[in-house]
């Protein structure tokens, strides 16, 4: 499994995302820039410039037509994937920490930070797909302030008007975006900040990662914890491998507490765990700092990791990985 190193960011990566076909990989960083790469060879296709702050989050629609980003300059931006032009900019009182498209591309949900007298807010915007995309409504369709601990991550669930959120306290919750009502919660889903949340293909379950060193699979309907993966390092990201019974976990201690030798050796590892048996099955080394974000190709043929070291590494799986049945012939539903 030879990695491709993508060099194009000057500061740490914050989120990476494949498009639906998996031919493109989007990356955003604290260097204010968003890049798009060909996933098969790592060639850079383009750059989305114009923001004035760390870009915290990105998402791409299912047609690879629009990309949405959220940044420390208190803006959420809509971009044309093809031309690289910024089509629309929404401005907020505080930074945008997370954005996510609905699976039918009709809406975007975003989280803005709690700061300077402003509460953490969750807003849902309609995305007007008519015309060239520049005609968007300034005002959100829905807006509310989640009660209690502030939200760090979110995504739409298959249930209409219901989103799932992860919080600073470790809580995972379901909210009705129309009313702002917290429909259900699991206060003890994690013991520390929820750092990532990625949905399964059909949205019926999701995986979360946390600084509490664990990742968990939750049923998105009732928030039941289905699986737990406990590691020995704080986790920043967790991803599901489609059609394979694995989950990929990444994280690592902050650079301050790491010895210089391990920094030099690129010892930060992506951990592969068996999704059903909750056993670690392998690790891939390479990053020189904590892994901040992991994404798996939608067809499961490769994965990418983005690090605190400013690099994105793309790993194409060997045939042996795709054919391997490390625990016998048991058929495992995706």
């Amino acid at each position: 499994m030879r990695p491709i190193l993508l060099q194009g960011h000057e500061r740490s990566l914050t989120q990476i995302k494949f498009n639906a076909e998996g031919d493109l990989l989007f990356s955003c960083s604290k260097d204010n820039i968003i890049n798009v790469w060909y996933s098969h060879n790592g060639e850079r296709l383009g750059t989305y410039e114009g923001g004035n702050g760390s870009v915290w989050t990105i998402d791409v629609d299912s047609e690879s037509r629009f990309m949405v980003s959220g940044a420390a300059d208190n803006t959420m931006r809509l971009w044309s994937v093809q031309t690289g032009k910024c089509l629309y900019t929404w401005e907020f009182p505080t930074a945008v920490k997370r954005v996510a498209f609905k699976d039918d591309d009709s809406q975007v949900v975003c989280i803005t930070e709690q700061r300077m007298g402003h509460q953490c807010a969750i807003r849902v915007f309609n995305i007007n797909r008519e015309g060239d995309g520049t005609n968007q409504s300034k005002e959100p369709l829905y807006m509310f302030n989640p009660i209690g601990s502030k939200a760090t991550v979110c995504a739409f669930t298959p249930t209409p008007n219901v989103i799932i959120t992860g919080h600073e306290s470790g809580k995972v919750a379901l909210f009705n975006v129309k009313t702002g009502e917290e429909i259900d919660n699991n206060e003890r889903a994690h013991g520390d900040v929820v750092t990532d949340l990625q949905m399964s293909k059909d949205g019926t379950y999701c995986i979360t990662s946390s600084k509490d060193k664990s990742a968990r699979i939750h049923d998105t309907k009732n928030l039941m914890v289905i699986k737990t993966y406990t590691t020995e390092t704080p986790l920043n990201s967790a991803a599901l491998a489609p059609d394979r019974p694995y989950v990929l976990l990444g994280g690592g201690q902050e650079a301050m507490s790491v010895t210089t030798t391990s920094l030099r050796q690129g010892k930060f590892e992506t951990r592969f765990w068996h999704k059903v048996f909750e056993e670690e099955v392998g690790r891939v080394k390479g990053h020189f700092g904590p892994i901040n974000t992991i994404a798996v190709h939608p067809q499961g043929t490769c994965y990418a990791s983005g690090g605190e070291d400013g690099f994105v590494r793309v790993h194409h799986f060997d045939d042996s990985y795709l054919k391997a049945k490390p625990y016998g012939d048991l058929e495992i539903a995706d």
Partner: protein
Amino acid sequence: EDAAEESNVSAELIALRKRLVDEWNAWRALCKKEHAEERGHKHEKVRESEEEKEEIE
């Protein structure tokens, strides 16, 4: 004796894994069924409202 013990352990492990896979697959089947029903329900609703519209017209 050791070998016998080892094979016992692996038999237990195999049984455990079989059970875990069965539980997982059962939960997935339930999720998929509910998901499909909800989608069907949604479509029905859309159809109903379309029919209503037609009647009004």
